[in-house]
């Protein structure tokens, strides 16, 4: 029998597996402990129960935070996608002076550390001597999610040949009708993906939100953060589980839906 030492590939495989274990094991533990019957998170678990989810549903602060997050996420998604689609159209379909500069500016928020972005927006607000409010929070989230939308939509738009739009125009549709009849439907998968991105990113953002949120307003991540400072309640595990499921399931459903639509309509 010959014993072969681990080759480069097996080493990489092991490293990969370990990386994923370290990344996901804590997540798995949180999800597991969310169903733990006992107050104290320890193994072996004393029994299965959904009591922490029930308590979660009865916790007013959490419900409020959840509502705030949903509204904030939805508004961010809609605004960010609308702006993103318009910006992408301008970038891909038209030529104008300063185009490259604007493009860089649109993408910049993902290149700048989030803390820097958060502080600078706050300072800007102070410069305008305005109080912190929900609009600022929304603005921050829009700026922060815009690059993702722009990147996704631009990539798709480049692939849509201009002839489709030119054909529609030649047949008598004005530029608006052309956009809603031809460009937008062909762009839909990217628009949907951009919206999901924007929603998910907004939904679990914490750094920027901590800086921008007005006093008394909490989103789910800042609520968890606040709860952690007091005690480690099993409720947090349950809340974490809900968030994980939301942020993972939503894009997956979206992608599935997009693929199904595309296969039906021949995108």
């Amino acid at each position, binding site marked *: 029998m010959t014993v072969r030492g681990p080759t480069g590939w097996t080493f990489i495989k092991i490293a990969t597996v370990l990386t994923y274990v370290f990344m996901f094991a804590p997540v798995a533990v949180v999800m597991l402990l969310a169903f733990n019957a006992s107050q104290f998170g320890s193994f072996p678990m004393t029994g299965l129960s959904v009591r922490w989810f029930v308590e979660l549903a009865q916790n007013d602060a959490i419900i409020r935070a959840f509502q705030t997050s949903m509204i904030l996420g939805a508004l961010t998604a809609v605004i960010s996608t609308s702006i993103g689609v318009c910006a992408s159209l301008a970038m891909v379909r038209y030529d104008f002076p300063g185009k490259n500069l604007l493009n860089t500016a649109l993408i910049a928020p993902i290149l700048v550390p989030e803390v820097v972005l958060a502080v600078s927006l706050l300072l800007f607000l102070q410069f305008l001597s305005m109080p912190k409010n929900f609009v600022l929070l929304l603005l921050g989230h829009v700026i922060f999610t815009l690059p993702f939308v722009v990147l996704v939509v631009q990539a798709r738009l480049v692939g849509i*040949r201009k*002839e*489709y739009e*030119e*054909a*529609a*125009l*030649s*047949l*008598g*549709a*004005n*530029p608006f*009708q*052309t956009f809603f*009849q*031809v460009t937008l*439907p*062909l762009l839909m998968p990217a628009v949907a993906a951009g919206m999901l991105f924007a929603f998910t990113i907004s939904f679990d953002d914490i750094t920027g939100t901590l800086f921008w949120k007005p006093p008394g307003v909490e989103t789910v991540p800042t609520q968890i953060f606040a709860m952690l400072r007091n005690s480690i309640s099993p409720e947090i595990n349950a809340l974490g589980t809900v968030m994980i499921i939301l942020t993972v399931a939503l894009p997956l459903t979206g992608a599935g839906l997009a693929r199904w639509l595309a296969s039906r*309509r*021949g*995108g």
Partner: protein
Amino acid sequence: MADPQHDPQHAVELRNVVKRFGAFTAVHAMDLNVERGSFVTFVGPSGCGKTTTLRMIAGLEDATDGDIRIKGQRVNDVPIHKRNLGIVFQNYALFPHKTIYENVAFGLKYRAVDRETARKKVREALQLVQLPHLEERVPKQLSGGQQQRIALARAIVIEPDVLLLDEPLSALDANLREEMRVELKRIQRELGISTIFVTHDQSEALAMSDKVVVMSEGWIEQEGTPEQVYNQPASEFVANFLGISNIFSGQVQAVSGGIARLGLDDGPELLGHPRDGRAARQGERVRLAVRAEKVFLSESAPSDDPAAVVLDGKVTAVDYQGQAARYFVEAGPLTLQAINPIDRRPFHEGQPVKLRIRAQDVVLLDADAHQSAAAKAAAE
């Protein structure tokens, strides 16, 4: 508004139309009339400005200078969606997210057409392109040829003032292209629709058109019927672009009775027949063209013809093409190409032959339009 030159009888009129991209001029001072109901083809090598001209007529590109008229009305400032044109693109550009019916009916939505009439018109258009049974399919379920027919139906259902086609057949394979060419011509005739067709395939241009416009480097080299541009090329460029021509330089030695005696540079004499509107002056230096299929080869001296010249030569190479052959023939200092139908068996390499060139087939050329224009610009 009141322009004495413009004629509402013309479907399209270009007057001094120029297109510049930055410092580069893609289309130079173009003048052109497209008669109503006629089929006009733009032909020329890649980059000569065919597409650019078509896009200016369509309103997809702004003209830098000049006037574009459709049915006598200046349209330079009319946006494309108000020009009432039918455009067929090289890659069909059928809306992939709409059914065939929706595609064809698209243009009718923006016209005062009620639902019933629209349905009827779409049916008729689909009938016309012989694809009446595909209404519910989406474009990707159709073959290339079928898609191109639907694209044509979509463009003609709106009864456009002008139909514009930019290399509509080039994405199809050879057999299908032939078939679509005939089909397109039939539909154009049936509807009597004014059509501008862009191609770089000379046989397409010659086969389909009422008028061929040969372009080069943004200039019109020649416009005329297929027969005119083929048999009476105006310039060396046209003579070389359409078919195979022998080009010589020489001098007019005498003109009598409409026939010019032409001395080729250090070579034999030819008799030439000045083209309509192209007088030959004695002593003038000229370029001349003789089509390869107008150089007749024979083994023995052919019967005496006062309006023809016979040269002695030798076949140096044979390019066998089935029912015809292309020969390279040396005649003194000249090397000619001759395309002759094969009678029994082709001439073989090294065979001595007689070359007969008739006066009517010797065409006196003008300088290339793009070159003379450039020279004129330099002189100014």
